[in-house]
């Protein structure tokens, strides 16, 4: 100690002679006495001790924040997507989620309500309106019966409207939940709730949670792929497949529906694969140095993503190329290579499922049938929407089934809320086109695949299809059920963030809907 002070003194003298600007810094060094050193040493040791103890008492506090009290989701940072076994034996290994953005009308598709049809055109009873908030309905709206005839289909005899002639052939493989409920009545927050378990921004989407918990089997493809079907992006935006507070490597990878699936994936002209390789190695070296200096796990994520992109060069283009399918399969889906369509995406979804992609999220758009214009009228645009999804959805189910994949795949179909049994009367006036307003109180979601009872309906709404009278299922219950099928107790798939063991089902109690489990 005293030696160093002597050395510092001489150095200071020299610096003073040379007029160096570090004089102040050295003077500060000098001012630091042995007592200062010992005092801070004591404090420092105490802090170290406390830190060590705290890490014992609270096992989930560690540098990367990826450890949890219950289950360990840590991986080698270089392979953040490597597969992990589920908590217990899983019924399904992968999920294909078909989100119908805009909230399709359950009353025109799956909810057969003859009493509503009978009362069509009459004034809505006051009890329906008391204490309710609507997006557009004002005054006293008229009741609106289903616009399309219903009939029973399949061995299970479930009711379905005539708008889905292909899907009705698969009805015996489908489990309808007719008593879904949400607490959001605007599109963006309701979509966020369906996708992330939370109506606010900043939470990881379902797919991110699943890939975080299970990783993905095929390391040459992203574990969570998102496909849009042209039209408009869902109101919830890219937040719907964001990884929120999870490491960003778990976010959904949005692939383009036509042209190259991922832009700039191919090597530019004159760049060989080996050249690309050596370039990536150099970048990885630099990133490693950055990581060593700052310890930000996102740096490792970046390295992993470069590596995945390199591996994807081989496989992604092939997986997304539906031209490789026989004509008969293209016809089955109604797919036309080259265009952006839900049909193409359904076929891609099957190809991705075969290749071990964990979570495939498909969007369809334009289901917001207010009746404010022709495109979103129940009697006009709605028909086009049904046509766009009916055949591909049915083909996806039957194709998965014949390949034996449906038994360990979960297919989910649904929007973000339901629609009212009242006709929308924007501004209190009868509108030119027929439409319905938002109804968060009841809507239909269906599931098909492994571990789910096939050919049943769960839950029930009143005669008007307005409110649930039996077995309500909250969004968080649906999430808990899906996680259960994937082999997780929804409490255990968690991530410590902001002092809370965050989970998909958030903080309210969620229940696995045991009644629909096979």
């Amino acid at each position: 100690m005293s030696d160093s002070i002597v050395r510092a003194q001489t150095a200071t003298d020299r610096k003073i002679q040379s007029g160096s600007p570090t004089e102040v810094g050295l003077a500060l060094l000098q001012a630091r006495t042995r007592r200062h050193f010992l005092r801070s040493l004591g404090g420092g040791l105490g802090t170290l001790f406390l830190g060590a103890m705290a890490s014992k008492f609270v096992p989930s506090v560690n540098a990367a924040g990826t450890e949890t009290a219950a289950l360990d989701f840590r991986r080698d940072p270089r392979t953040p997507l490597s597969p992990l076994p589920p908590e217990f034996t899983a019924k399904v290994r992968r999920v294909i989620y078909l989100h119908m953005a805009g909230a399709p009308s359950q009353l025109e598709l799956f909810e057969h309500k003859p009493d509503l049809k009978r009362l069509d055109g009459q004034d809505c009873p006051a009890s329906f309106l008391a204490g309710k908030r609507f997006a557009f309905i004002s005054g006293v709206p008229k009741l609106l019966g289903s616009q399309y005839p219903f009939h029973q289909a399949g061995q299970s005899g479930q009711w379905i409207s005539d708008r889905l002639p292909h899907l009705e052939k698969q009805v015996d493989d489908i489990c309808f939940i007719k008593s879904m409920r949400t607490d959001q009545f605007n599109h963006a927050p309701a979509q966020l709730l369906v996708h992330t378990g939370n109506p606010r921004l900043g939470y990881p989407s379902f797919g991110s949670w699943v890939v975080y918990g299970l990783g993905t089997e095929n390391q040459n493809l992203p574990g969570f792929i998102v496909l849009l079907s042209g039209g408009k992006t869902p109101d919830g935006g890219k937040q719907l497949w964001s990884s929120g507070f999870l490491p960003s490597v778990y976010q959904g990878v949005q692939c383009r529906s036509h042209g190259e699936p991922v832009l700039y994936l191919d090597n530019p002209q004159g760049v060989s694969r080996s050249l690309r390789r050596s370039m990536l190695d150099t970048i990885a070296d630099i990133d490693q140095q950055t990581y060593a200096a700052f310890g930000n796990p996102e740096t490792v994520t970046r390295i992993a993503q470069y590596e995945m992109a390199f591996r994807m060069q081989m496989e992604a283009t092939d997986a997304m190329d539906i031209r490789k399918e026989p004509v008969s399969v293209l016809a089955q889906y109604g797919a036309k290579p080259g265009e952006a369509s839900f049909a193409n995406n359904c076929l891609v979804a099957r190809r991705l499922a075969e290749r071990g992609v964990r979570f495939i999220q498909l969007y369809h758009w334009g289901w917001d049938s207010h009746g404010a214009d022709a495109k979103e009228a129940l009697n006009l645009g709605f028909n086009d929407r049904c046509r766009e999804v009916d055949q591909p959805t049915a083909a996806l189910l039957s194709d998965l089934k014949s390949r034996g994949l449906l038994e360990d795949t979960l297919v989910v179909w649904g929007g973000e809320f339901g629609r009212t049994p009242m006709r929308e009367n924007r501004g209190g006036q009868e509108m030119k086109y027929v439409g319905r307003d938002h109804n968060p109180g009841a809507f239909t979601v269906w599931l098909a695949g492994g571990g789910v009872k096939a050919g049943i309906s769960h839950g029930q709404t009143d005669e008007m299809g307005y409110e649930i009278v039996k077995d309500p299922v909250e969004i968080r219950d649906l999430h808990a059920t899906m996680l259960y099928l994937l082999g997780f107790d929804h409490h255990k798939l968690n991530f410590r963030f902001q002092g809370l063991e965050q989970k998909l089902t958030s903080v309210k109690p969620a229940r696995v809907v045991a009644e629909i489990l096979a």
Partner: protein
Amino acid sequence: MNVPNQNSGQNSGLSTPSRQGSLIRFRLEFVPLACMLVVTLLVILFPPDGNERADWLQFIGRFHTLIVHFPIALFLLVPVLELAGRRPRFAYLQLSINFVLGLATVAAVAAAILGWCLARSGGYSGRLITQHMWGGLLLSIICWVCWMLRPRELRMIYAVALALGVGLVTWTGYRGGQLSLGPNHLTEHMPNGLRTLLRVEPSASTAVIADPNTFYGARIQPIFTARCITCHGRDKHKGNLRLDSFQALLRGGKDGPVIHTGNTQASDLFRRITLPSSHDDFMPKGKQPLTADEVRLIELWIGAGASDTLVVNAIKNAPSGSAIPAEVTFVRVDPDAVAKLRSTIAPAVAQLQKQFPNILDYDSRSSADLRLNASMLGGRFGDRDLEAFAPIAEHIVVADLSRTAISDHSAALIATMTRLRVLRLMDTRLTDATLLHLESLDQLESLDVYGTAITPSVLPMIAKLPKLLHFYAGETGIQAGNSVSKDLAGKLVF
């Protein structure tokens, strides 16, 4: 009573003990001793029998929980005073020790008497109450002994007795806490972090596990376990009744059997759970009544003969699992047990995982079964590669070899995967030769040969697989029109 001994007398400069004082204390000392004898006799002659007596005895007995804290605090004060009194600065404390000991003895005896009253009349019996009772009695005797020994200069024996007493206070007090707050009252709400650090296991139910394939084991015992055994279990047998095993249930309680086989109305257990909750005999006392479905299940079970061998689905109109909001149960993963289960194959698995990354893993975190999915490797995975998995073949329960380059040479190896539930051979070069080899796969539930050159000649062999549910035969030589048995037709998927 508070006569100082000679040492303390010198220290504090107070007068030496008088003869008269000793005499008074002599008498005083034997009052508690006599009381103790009485309690001991009471405890032996009238032990707590689990019968509840709602009379003055219980009224007095309830004061036990109030009084019991005095001997605890007073007795624990003694070693504190002894230690502090050794320092000259606190020497005066020594003067009070005998007084405190005397008070502690009186309080301990009072607590013991009241304790007997409560135990005898409050419907207690069982291991916990016996231990607590004898602990309390022994403690009051030790109290008395300490009180006697201290002035008599028998320092060594006194010190030993004091130490024993402190230990006994702790143990008896803990038992008392278990009686009133539950067996794991100290660790019940322990934070998880601390729990891991101290390796405290969350307490498990103490009920005897009944066969889950019986109606009793699956539907009845869980009700008792959830609703009854806190008072009628291993640690407390109120009313001398235990409901933690079928044998104990048949034995009944203080008034004889609580179940009359086949006669619901004569069964006291059924009568009590169906009374209005304000009734004196209502059970579970002071808790939420059993749900309608729970009552119905018990009613049906007693009506059907109250047997523990009746199979789970024998009673047709029993409220189904879904009528009672059936909750799925999440099984806790015990890492040590899993590690033990995997110990024989773990090195081989680790080796294979290194050699073939991402294609082999355990079925779940709680299982030693394996899943093999080589389909992503496609043509890069062939017969040679599959051979590497031979050492662990019988642990594989799901194998996906779709689109791989394996050929009929692998048939023998696949046939050794005898525990396979799911086998996928989609779009491979395999032929009938392989399939005809697979008769040994008697656990197979799902077999997928979509897109292979399989012909209808394998169908008789497929029909023999006992557990098979689905046979995916699309795009093969097998057609929907092939004549197959009705049984197999239901399993074929195209």
